[in-house]
């Protein structure tokens, strides 16, 4: 009995002493006081020193894209720090190009605010806002893909370009102790400023997809910020090729709505890849687009169509279907959305079909 008591007392004593030491150090050593951040030589605000630049900006409602939520693994939250950033950290090196280094570009999630700072952020990003919304509708598009309609409830309106994305915030839930931000392309029409649609696939153990698929239901409140991204429909007359696989459908759907809204009459062909007939979705809408847009064609392609399914459409990967449909010709644009390997192989095929590198726009996701 004595041994048990002594053990508990000693362990408690040691841990309490260490915790006390750490708390004191955190209060006195890690306290950097109030610091000033000046953005684009214009806006200025005071923040609590010692936090990362990314979180200090978020506190002041400036949202840099950060798909990993500030863990230093996505490399999106870049901004130029002209003063007060200190030397580049080894953790930033692999995400910074030579041009970035020359222009004082840093990863805002790695740099801590310890001195007054002078930073530069693209004007577009200063327009990024945080929105409060409720889940107005959830619809199962396939067994693993959901369409989510988020209605903005805080009186704001969202202005975005077809193809851009937002960051959705999952609050802590059983199995995920921290808040997580993840990026999703907007799937709805830019004309609808009161809500956005998202198409979200279930990824086993994915923190946000698990939240959306297993915990979120209609009527729930949710936060998102945006819009972000430079993948959007360009103002151009040339023929367009759209390519997507699975949830890559989202930005393409938004682009098609935009073409419909603005009555853009371009020769457009959309190659959509799935595995089996059950993985195809929004087919009615595609038929509608084909009717309303005179020169639009939808080509679904199945990579694993079962023999008994009597599938009469294209088979194989999307790149196979593209080889069949596209002749070698210059002066065309391409918009691609999907996984990295899919984008890489599609770009290769398009270049073989005489597409110019700078006319291939894509949104790559992991």
């Amino acid at each position, binding site marked *: 009995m004595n*041994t048990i008591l*002594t*053990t508990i007392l000693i362990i408690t004593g040691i841990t309490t002493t*260490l915790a006390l*030491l750490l708390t004191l*150090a955190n209060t006195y*050593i*890690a306290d950097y006081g109030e610091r000033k951040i000046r953005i684009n030589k214009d806006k200025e605000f005071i923040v609590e020193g010692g936090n990362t630049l990314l979180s200090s900006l978020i506190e002041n409602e400036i949202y840099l894209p950060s798909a990993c939520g500030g863990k230093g693994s996505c490399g999106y939250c870049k901004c130029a720090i002209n003063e007060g950033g200190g030397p580049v*950290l*080894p953790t930033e090196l692999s995400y910074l190009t030579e041009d970035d280094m020359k222009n004082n570009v840093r990863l805002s999630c790695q740099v801590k605010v310890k001195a007054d700072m002078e930073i530069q952020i693209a004007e577009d990003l200063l327009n990024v806002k945080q929105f409060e919304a409720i889940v107005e509708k959830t619809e199962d598009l396939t067994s693993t893909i959901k369409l989510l309609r988020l209605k903005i409830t805080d009186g704001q309106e969202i202005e975005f370009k077809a193809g851009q994305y937002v960051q959705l915030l999952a609050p802590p839930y059983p199995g995920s102790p921290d808040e997580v931000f993840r990026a999703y392309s907007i799937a709805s029409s830019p004309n609808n400023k009161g809500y956005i649609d998202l198409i979200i696939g279930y990824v086993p153990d994915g923190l946000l997809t698990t939240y959306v698929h297993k915990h979120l239901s209609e009527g729930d409140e949710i936060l998102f910020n945006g819009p972000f991204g430079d993948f959007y429909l360009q103002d151009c007359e040339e023929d367009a090729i759209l390519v997507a696989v699975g949830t890559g459908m989202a930005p393409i759907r938004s682009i098609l709505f935009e073409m419909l809204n603005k009555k853009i009459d371009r020769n457009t062909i959309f190659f959509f890849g799935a595995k089996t007939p059950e993985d195809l979705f929004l087919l009615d809408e595609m038929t509608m687009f084909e009717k309303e847009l005179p020169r639009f064609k939808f080509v679904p392609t199945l990579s694993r169509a079962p023999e008994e399914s009597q599938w009469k459409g294209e088979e194989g990967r999307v790149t196979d279907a593209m080889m069949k449909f596209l002749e070698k010709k210059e002066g065309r644009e391409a918009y691609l959305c999907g996984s990295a390997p899919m984008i890489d192989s599609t770009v290769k095929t398009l270049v073989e079909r005489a597409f110019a590198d700078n006319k291939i726009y894509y949104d790559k996701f992991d």
Partner: protein
Amino acid sequence: MENVNPFVILFASIFTSNMILANFLGMCSFIAVSKEIKTSLGLGQAVTFVLTGTTIINYLVYHHVLVPFGLEYLRFIVFIITIAAFVQLVEMVVERYLPNLYYSLGIFLPLITVNCAILGVSLFMVIRDYTFIQSVAFGFGSGLGWLLAILAMSGIRQKIKKAPIPKGLEGAGITLFITGLMALAFIGFSGIVQIQ
């Protein structure tokens, strides 16, 4: 082990009982961070500093708190807690008061918390019944030995960057092979002195 000169322990822990090459402790960071000499030097220095510091603290905690109460069996958990707290504390101090050191070394400190060599040295110190001075020599020497091994490895890895290594052996595979060869080379020192 009262009769062993601390300098002998220092020498032996660098060469003949090297933490990596004789005990294979601290391998994960050794393999992951030995790609470039500059980062290896930073990590090696940080390991040396933390090893010396934690060996001293763990010696004091063990002999002045655990032994008097007969709680030696708690050494695993207590050593781990001490190491974690020490690393956190050092990181905060270095970040605040030694910014230049922080940029070159501080970034590696959190990585060191989970380095098995740190816990290994504190446990060896107890098993071999070292005195305080011997423990300090052992901790410092083990750190220098780890630094020497990772520097040598990063030098070799930089040299073989363009070598035609079979695809499946690239990265960790070839590093383990080289570590094995280095360990064989270090056996050459073993005739000089032994502390095990």
